């Protein structure tokens, strides 16, 4: 018998309140009519309208979205390859070195990664800007994809792959027709995480950016340093809304996928 004690309920409730209250307050204040951020002047969409005319912010948003889409796609390909190598190749020489290199960026302080990548770009004389951010973000986010895909690769039944191979299916085809569809939810989740991490990153982008390539976080950061502004509340609210919608859609998708897979597995057993 599982007992839910009052202490447990309170700690979870307080924890969630702590996590959500600041964001809720931010969202509410983005609809504030008053220019003074702390005085409530009634509901208004003024700051959203102002945002529509903020060319610098809009172009920063477009750069950020393009960087995120490109780097997430590259990171998903690289990260999935690394995950397959780590789970399906057994013990190969240099495996420990490889896995340490894969996991290290997960906890590496961003200032170190950013500085080292910038110095690399300077050393090879690469023109800094849009593409250097894409390369930097790919490096940062591929390890997150690896971890997610790896967990899924370990979790599923290998006998399906083995059956295909035993029946003479070549490895590449086995991978494309059996493995890939099975790990697809993890790959999609990995891409999404990579996309959001890239959209979010300030430190590494600041180091590796060049003239004319300000991403949204760089732009927001330079505004925030000057103080709280209602326009910033508005752009933050838009980002929060987009992220919440995408996450909700993704979790619904994977849930439906999971139900379908369970049904298929059940049907196969019967």
């Amino acid at each position: 018998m599982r007992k839910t004690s009052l202490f447990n309920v309170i700690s979870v409730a307080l924890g969630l309140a702590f996590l959500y209250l600041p964001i809720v307050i931010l969202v509410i204040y983005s609809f504030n009519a008053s220019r003074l951020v702390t005085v409530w002047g009634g509901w208004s969409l003024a700051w959203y309208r102002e945002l529509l005319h903020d060319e610098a912010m809009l172009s920063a948003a477009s750069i950020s979205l393009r960087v995120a889409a490109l780097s997430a796609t590259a990171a998903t390909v690289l990260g999935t390859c690394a995950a397959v190598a780590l789970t399906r190749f057994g013990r190969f020489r240099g495996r420990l070195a490889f896995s340490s290199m894969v996991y290290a960026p997960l906890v590496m302080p961003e200032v170190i990664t950013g500085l080292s990548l910038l110095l690399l770009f300077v050393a090879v004389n690469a023109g800094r800007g849009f593409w250097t951010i894409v390369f930097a973000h790919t490096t940062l986010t591929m390890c997150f994809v690896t971890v997610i895909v790896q967990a899924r690769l370990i979790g599923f039944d290998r006998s399906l792959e083995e059956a295909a191979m035993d029946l003479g299916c070549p490895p590449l085809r086995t991978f494309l027709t059996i493995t890939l569809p099975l790990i697809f939810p993890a790959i999609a989740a990995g891409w999404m995480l990579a996309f959001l991490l890239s959209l979010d990153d300030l430190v590494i982008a600041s180091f590796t950016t060049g003239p004319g390539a300000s991403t949204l976080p760089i732009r927001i950061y330079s505004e925030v340093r000057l103080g709280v502004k209602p326009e910033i509340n508005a752009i933050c609210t838009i980002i929060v809304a987009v992220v919440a919608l995408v996450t909700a859609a993704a979790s619904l998708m994977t849930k439906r996928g999971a139900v379908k897979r369970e049904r298929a597995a059940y049907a196969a057993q019967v």
Partner: protein
Amino acid sequence: MTATPHRGWGACAVLLVPVLWLVAFFLAPFIIVLKISLSRTAVAQPPYLPVFDLAAGWSGLTSFFAQLTLDGYQLLISDQIYLFSYLKSLQVAAVSTAILLLIGYSIAYGIARAPRRLQPLLVMLVVLPFWTSFLIRVYAWINILQRDGLLNDVLMTLHIVDTPQVWLSSDTAIYIGVVYSYLPFMVLPLYATLEKMDEVLLEAAADLGCPRWKTFWLVTLPLSMPGVMAGVLLCFIPIVGEFVIPDLLGGSDTLMIGQTLWTEFFSNRDWPVASAIAVALLALLLVPIVIYQRLQTRQLEGLR
């Protein structure tokens, strides 16, 4: 271990492509950082000396090595600013990790003891803010903590304080920001181990007359140690190098090491010293990073 299947060119590419990428964009940059940390600042483009010149051949190589110096590191030791910011970073990371462990453990424990069908929802609610931009979450606290912000309004309405208190630009603000931002990283690994725990053990302890606090201390806590380790490392390591939170919420009198590195690089344009700071910071974090990697490898591969 199952027999490894025959590997063709495709399989080699699957391994080689990520390896080459990581060597080029993760390993090579560290070697460059190490090299530049041994260089001298110069008014040039790039702003350091010596510059490696392949065209000069062997003599170029020897003169390159002859010009390397430890000046950057000597400055780190001689100027107290750097030592203080390292200590400050360690202090902030240690204290906030302890607070995170306390809060995170009670949330994770509460979720693991909640009705089964509610658990996925609760976990998603904890993770959701993590998907939201880091910068936005820190910015949200400026709204609340500033002098005429919401926190002072609430405290004054409740007559807890009479005059507006200073919250922003203080260590308290840094701690609030860090704990807020890193909470999901602490809750998730803790929940993962607590959820897997066999409840029969707790019932056995209760049946044998063990009081609940003692059961927690003797059974639950030791069994959740892998989660505690993972959570602590996952928070502690990045917090030491944190830049955004102390920069936006903290005061300007004491800097954390991430800010010092940032200032040396962007404001002072002293690339060798910034590199030396990075190398020293990495050396400081090497042991926890290695422990974390072994934990991660064991966790992901021990499932087999």
